[in-house]
């Protein structure tokens, strides 16, 4: 506190009194006149020429891309093309990397370990645990991201993505969100961590938090394979073989659409409850179209997005691989830790229509959704003793054909209900640790990180519980 004393008394008192007379708008008027003066100076000094030509071309394109009848179909078509190129293009390199890292290098490492006389537990921990988890994440994650992100960045560079936000804004506005959330959602279909980073384009704090918290409801790259596999095995099998593919594809799309619906519902709820007091502003610049700079785009999207995300995923996958191997191999009494935990989780798992194996797999696989199915397979073999399959305790593996998958899953006691719940839980569970870490980095807040992590789990368990109990009430098996 300042005490007024000394020879300057009069001036200070006078200033203090004058301050009251300024009124509350004086900061505002000051700012307004500063801006006005700045723009006056700019108008005097800057001459604008030659803008007319570009301008018309832009408007024609805009009328097409944001038109009442053409905007939506073009948008859906473009996104489909991007997804198709990603899926079709990623298969071959994914298989290549997998055969290199998992089928070739992994046995080589094992041989190398036994040649130099490594104890079995050290080679198991390093090569079967740590190496395999990291290799798995790289082979499943790298190719789709290396295709999806550059394509997306090209669209962004060209100036199309802001038009998507413009087209969809009225839907998002009703949910209390920002049109640009459409972009972070689409990015989330590639990777939620990248989706969370992509929310940086949303410059309003409230809407940005909404986009961050709900990004996990976009099925990411690591979850699509799980959805497709389970839908093919259990839901497609319900239909006659000719329709199987179509039915299972529809089931996967239905889960993805459920994710979109939940995104809107959660955005609406959050903006009216927890996030009510956050600052909210809106503005959306529609920059002029320009030819994309392909080389620079490739560089930034590969370095900034793909490699950054991949590196974080590998860093988190390494301890997960070690944990997986350890709990499957360290015995307490006559069983491994994994078997004890599975037995412990099983009653709760059954209550929500899953089982102990799946819950444990989701706990171990927090670092990466990619390793959920390999972990489930390994744990199922471990706990049910389906000894024909697998590579030994703690070693993740994949299977060649669908009958083998069914054999393992059935040995684990799976039913159609388990499959449906697994698909739902795969959509609604905590973000992977890479995404959680990214959320923390982006929001800088423990509170919002915890909310983004726990909200989907609570929703997922609740939904699975409801589906299971109603299913059983109606007499369904399982």
């Amino acid at each position, binding site marked *: *506190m*300042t005490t007024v004393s000394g020879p300057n008394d009069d001036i200070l008192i006078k200033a*203090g*009194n004058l*301050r*009251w007379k*300024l*009124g*509350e*708008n004086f*900061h*505002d008027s000051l*700012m*307004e006149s500063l*801006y*006005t003066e700045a*723009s006056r100076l700019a108008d005097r000094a800057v001459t*604008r020429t030659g*803008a007319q030509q570009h301008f018309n071309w832009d*408007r024609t394109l*805009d*009328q097409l891309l*944001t038109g*009442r009848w053409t*905007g*939506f179909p073009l948008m859906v078509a473009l996104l489909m093309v991007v997804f198709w190129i990603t899926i079709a293009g990623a298969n071959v390199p994914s298989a290549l990397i997998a055969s290199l890292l998992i089928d070739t290098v992994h046995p080589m490492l094992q041989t190398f370990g036994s040649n130099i006389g490594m104890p079995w537990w050290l080679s198991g921990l390093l090569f079967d645990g740590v190496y395999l988890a990291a290799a798995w994440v790289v082979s499943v994650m790298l190719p789709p991201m290396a295709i999806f992100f550059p394509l997306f960045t090209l669209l962004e560079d060209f100036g199309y993505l802001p038009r998507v936000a*413009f*087209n969809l*804004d*009225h*839907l998002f*506005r009703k949910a209390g969100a920002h*049109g640009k959330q459409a972009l972070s959602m689409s990015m989330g279909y590639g990777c939620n961590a990248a989706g969370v980073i992509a929310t940086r384009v949303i410059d309003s*704090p*409230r809407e940005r938090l909404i986009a961050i918290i709900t990004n996990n409801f976009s099925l990411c790259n690591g979850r699509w394979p799980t959805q497709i596999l389970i839908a093919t095995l259990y839901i497609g099998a319900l239909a006659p073989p000719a329709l199987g593919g179509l039915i299972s594809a529809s089931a996967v799309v239905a889960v993805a659409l459920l994710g979109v619906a939940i995104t809107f519902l959660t955005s609406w709820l959050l903006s009216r*409850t927890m996030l*009510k*007091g*956050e*600052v*909210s*502003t*809106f*503005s*959306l*610049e*529609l*920059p*002029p179209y320009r030819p994309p700079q392909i080389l620079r785009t490739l560089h930034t999207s590969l370095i900034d997005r793909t490699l950054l995300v991949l590196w974080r995923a590998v860093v988190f996958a390494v301890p997960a691989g070690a944990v997986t191997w350890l709990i499957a191999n360290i015995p307490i009494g006559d069983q491994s830790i994994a078997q004890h935990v599975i037995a412990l989780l099983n009653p709760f798992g*059954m*209550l929500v229509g899953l089982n102990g194996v799946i819950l444990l797999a989701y706990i171990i696989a927090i670092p990466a959704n990619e390793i959920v199915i390999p972990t489930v397979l390994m744990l199922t073999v471990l706990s049910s003793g389906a000894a024909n399959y697998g590579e030994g305790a703690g070693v993740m593996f994949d299977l060649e054909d669908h009958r083998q998958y069914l054999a393992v899953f059935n040995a684990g006691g799976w039913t159609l209900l388990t499959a449906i719940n697994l698909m739902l839980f795969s959509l609604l569970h905590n973000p992977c640790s890479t995404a959680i870490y990214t959320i923390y980095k982006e929001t800088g807040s423990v509170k919002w990180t915890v909310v983004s992590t726990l909200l989907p789990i609570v929703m997922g368990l609740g939904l699975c*519980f*409801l589906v*299971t*109990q*109603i299913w*059983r*009430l109606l007499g369904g098996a399982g």
Partner: protein
Amino acid sequence: MVDPARALILAAAVSLLLVLVFWPGIGVLARWQRTRLNTRRILIEDALKHLYDYEYQQLTATHRSLAGALSISGDEAARLLEGLQSLELLRAQGEHLVLTDDGRAYALRVIRMHRLWERYLADETGVNETEWHHQAEVKEHQLTPEQADALAVRMGNPSYDPHGDPIPTATGEIPVKRGIALTKLQPYEHAEVVHIEDEPDVVYAQLVAQDIHPGIHIRMISIDKDKVQLEADGIENALAPIIAANVTVVPVDRTETIERHEATLADLPLGGSGRVVAISRACRGPQRRRMMDLGILPGTTITAEMRGIGGDPTAYMIRGATIALRMNQAKMIHIQRNEEKAG
């Protein structure tokens, strides 16, 4: 296996219980927090605020007015006043209740925190303006004077709260009340709104809805016992006298005519253009700064370019950039239509 019907019923019961406990505002937890807050200290502080408020408005506070303001019984009010007297915050002069210097200083500290917090909510959060007062009512009892000073410094030592009430300085200085009630203004007189009353809620909500904010310019058109007809920042507006009485204005000498704000940006048809006259006072804090950052300033020419698929948002050409704004924002921007280009 658990019987499904029983499991569902149990789950429903548990979720109901959770809702009853945690529901914001009416849940058991919220109620418990409220009763916990309703301590003696809060009663004392609220009583001092009431007494000071009456003194400031040159009214006479009585133990009945106190009971009314704090929603307590007459007996409780009497006991409270005794307590205040024994703390030497108050002395009675016959029927009159007069604050001691200590009492006045204490009241001003509480008021300072209340108004600072309202200023903070208005400028730096997205909290709705009808909520400011209620949140500040709680916060004023929680902040320490040091926290209040830190907050004031961070906001650049604001001198008025968003309703136009002066914020007492840390040393407890506050200017004398200024202005007259809007209903005292004569036709054709000009005035600036300096204060609007934030209680009761109904009146305040009405004023907010009619776009009456501190800082706007008023020109009285006519006034009778049923209706006050006026021009607020260039827009014609009518208020009930009972509502208008809650607005304080300072008459200003104004001979030149105020620019009429006949339309808002939301009224522009596609292809039409207009010149910005002002940004509404209802748009404040980060919202207002964003608009200015975009170059939306008095004098800027804006053209409506394209409309979103659902009729909202609309893209405008502002200083050579295409920027989409939502309908509720466009309504905040007062413009004058450029007739020759509209169409």
